[in-house]
């Protein structure tokens, strides 16, 4: 089996993987990072979104081998080391943007990139930007509010942004 070396949440790890191992299964089963979820098998739901080299990606669409040599951030790596929530996480909490929390890690990771790459987010831009994430609980109402607020907070907290 080939060996991959991936930097996950700042820690560089090397593991032997089967060629068919998806990044999401590598994270969950080999590294025990179970915050990244699997909600479907057709790359539709977005529960498995992580950041690879800073870009949001569905980790079920990528082989672990393809992540070799790259930097991956999962939901476990988003908050500060002292437990302080990332502004986007804090906004989801403040605006009740989650209920059972299964889509949440992927939502938050998608939202972080959306906020970072889209200046002056509007409600419509958030709704369009969530095309790849399904939530069954919230009706998206509070997720949209949370992302708008989280994006604003990320603008005023450049330190947190730079730390990612």
């Amino acid at each position, binding site marked *: 089996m080939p060996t991959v070396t991936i930097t996950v949440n700042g820690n560089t790890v090397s593991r032997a993987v*089967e060629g*068919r191992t998806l990044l999401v299964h590598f994270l*969950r089963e080999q590294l025990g*990072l*179970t*915050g*990244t*979820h*699997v*909600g*479907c*098998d*057709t790359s*539709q*739901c977005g*529960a498995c979104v992580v950041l690879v080299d800073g870009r949001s990606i569905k980790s079920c669409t990528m082989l672990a081998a393809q992540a070799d040599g790259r930097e991956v951030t*999962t*939901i*476990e790596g*988003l*908050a500060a080391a002292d*437990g302080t*929530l990332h502004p986007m*996480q804090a906004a*989801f*909490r*403040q605006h*009740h943007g*989650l*209920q*059972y*929390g*299964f*889509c*949440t*890690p992927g939502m*938050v990771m998608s939202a972080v990139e959306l906020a970072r790459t889209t200046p002056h987010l509007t*409600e*419509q831009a*958030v*709704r*369009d930007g*969530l*095309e790849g*994430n*399904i*939530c*069954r*609980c*919230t*009706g*998206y*109402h*509070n*997720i*949209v509010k949370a992302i708008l607020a989280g994006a604003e907070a990320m603008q005023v907290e450049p330190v947190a942004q730079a730390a990612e």
Partner: protein
Amino acid sequence: MTNPAGTHPAGANPSGIGASIRRREDQRFLTGRGTYTDDINRPHQVHAFILRSPYAHARIGGFDLTAARAAPGVVAIFTGADLVADKVGSLPCGWQIHSKDGSPMIEPPHPPLVTDRVRHVGDQVALVLAETKAQARDAAELIVVDYQELPAVTGTRDALAPGAPLVHDQAASNLCFDWHLGDPAAVDAAFARAHHVTRIDLINNRLIANAMEPRAAIGEYDRATDDYTLWTTSQNPHVIRLLMGGFVLGIPEHKLRVIAPDVGGGFGSKIFHYAEEALVTWAARKIHRPVKWTADRSESFMSDAHGRDHVTHAELALDANGKFLGLRVNTIANMGAYLSTFAPSVPTYLYATLLAGQYATPAIYAEVRAVFTHTVPVDAYRGAGRPEACYVIERLVENAARELGIDRAELRRRNFIPPSAMPYATPVALEYDCGLFHRDLDEALTLIDYAGFPARKADSARRGKLRGIGFANYIEACGIAPSNIAGALGARAGLYESAEVRFHPTGSVTVFTGSHSHGQGHETTFSQLVSDRFGIPIDKIEIVHGDTSKVPFGMGTYGSRSLAVGGSAIAKAMDKIVAKGRKIAAHMLEAAETDIEFNAGRFSVAGTDRALGIADIALSAYVPHNYPLDELEPGLDEQSFYDPKNFTFPNGCQICELEIDPDTGVTKILAFVAADDFGKVINPMIVEGQVHGGIAQGIGQALMENCVYDSQSGQLLTGSYMDYCMPRADDLPSFQVAYHEEAPCTHNPLGVKGCGEAGTIGGSAAVMNAVVDALADRGITHLDMPATPERVWRALRDAMPAQAAE
């Protein structure tokens, strides 16, 4: 008055009743530290893969397992014959319906693994256990099954057609039961004197719940103690323990622990006892290793119980003033291939009993035929029967208003059950305790600016768009109860809830509840109940749920029952804490027990400044040095089993306004408002979130979601998110929701009614009424759900010649 999220009465306990405190569970979910079943791994576990039927209906001639057993990593492969040899039972049904003629429903066996016949695509054929999930899946592909394909029937109406293929030999014409409710003679008399009759034929489309967490289960067996443990994605672990232990595997309660950890949503689909739970538990003992199974989403589509799937003809009789005289409803309900846990209750006692809606219709008669088909079993999905009832009534009312030329709001007002008539006994077996239906309607009309609608419609018309508005005035019955009545109606379980409130010596509290939280935020809301009553901060309160070894008993969470039943059980247990605390305080304060007052966590002697905090009382209870030991046991730990006196009746008015592009058939929702009555509200923020999510599922059913089988092959055509259209963020608007607390439930200690299903119950009816309203000018009076662009476009195209001819 509307109480917007984020506010609470000034001066009140900041974490008490009415405060929109942020959720306690969010920290772990937001940081990826929730523990869902698939996140759990047990030492030496094997992985299970379930080989499922690719056919809707086939006879199994035999298996060749040789190659599969020799595949890498395979530990064991089991088929139905192995279960039969071990005397594994059938998956039981928890509700028995009797037909009109008094005969019990046809209740065919539902084996966890089939033996000689498969009856739907996805039926369980073999269990493969291997060292990895991939190896188990690879091995399953090597299993040779000798299938002889048989004709199948999947359509609800088709099931009763002469000559339709039979799903079970014992169910002639595929009929499971032929049930009725109400007074047919009174209804006939009402129709005989009617000024006008509105008729409708409609389909309530089959849905798939699609909780984002796929089902999963881990079974473990301890040889040393003969104890079993099952981790499962369940809304009600005690019910699974009872059904699986008692009926399928023969494991007594004291030897079976069922844990439902963090569960990623249920919406009804995780109420039921599923084959996979029994298979992993049984197999763990066979191979003496833990067995883990997690569904792929494709498996979820073909193995999670589906919802709805009714075909209905209904008629409403009105007098010359638009007063409703009688309602006649005839429904065929699809049960699927087997009876899922609570399936028979859904199109009967959760449906026909709600057909009065908010209206004083004096005579109602409903007939329901339940049929077997070669499809996945159908059971409760968010709302369960009540959205189907609301849809029938509200579509009829809207059409009646149009036919009679009476404003839709006015027609509803003329027929509302007035507050003065409460408590009100409906002609379909319920007694509503309270409800201010005019008030809900008025608030919703204000929110949507109903008076401004004609101008907005004209504006849309100028832009070439068809604008419509639609109402749903819903009422639901939550917290099915009391147990003795439910039992008389066919329930094979009690419908109470348990709670244990344990005060610890240093003043913190653990609450053990039989309710189960899978998104509803019980850890927050239930803590608020305790904080409010005992005056202690939230961080000194722990809510424990989802583990049969910790919680005394539980019926779980479904039917919006958690707060009304589970919360009331907590309130009752807290009453006992206060009663005992009063005795302890009387002793310590050297006063008569009758002179002790309790308020916000303090016991005081009436008319004096002598008082003790409840934490002092708790300490004394565990260190009973100055304590009435002659008359009182030490400790401060109380239990309650609360069995409600009646259902609760949440109600409200939802209004949808939308615009249709006649060129493309695309519907865009412009506004959706809901004015609700949930009785007393504990956490407004959480309640509003529940309403948002419910509305989204109602809109989903109305505009996009649809479970489709191929009528010839019986194949599930909507077997993935590529084909089953889930509502996404850009399909939905933001919602305007409001509620009032002026009509608290009259019979439970908290005055609460439940809010989990409300949005879904009215949502689809409001949207479809708006769609039909938009299309009415083109002569369209009905469209079945989902109103996809294609359906809308075809309906407009089909209506065009008629319009041209006029």
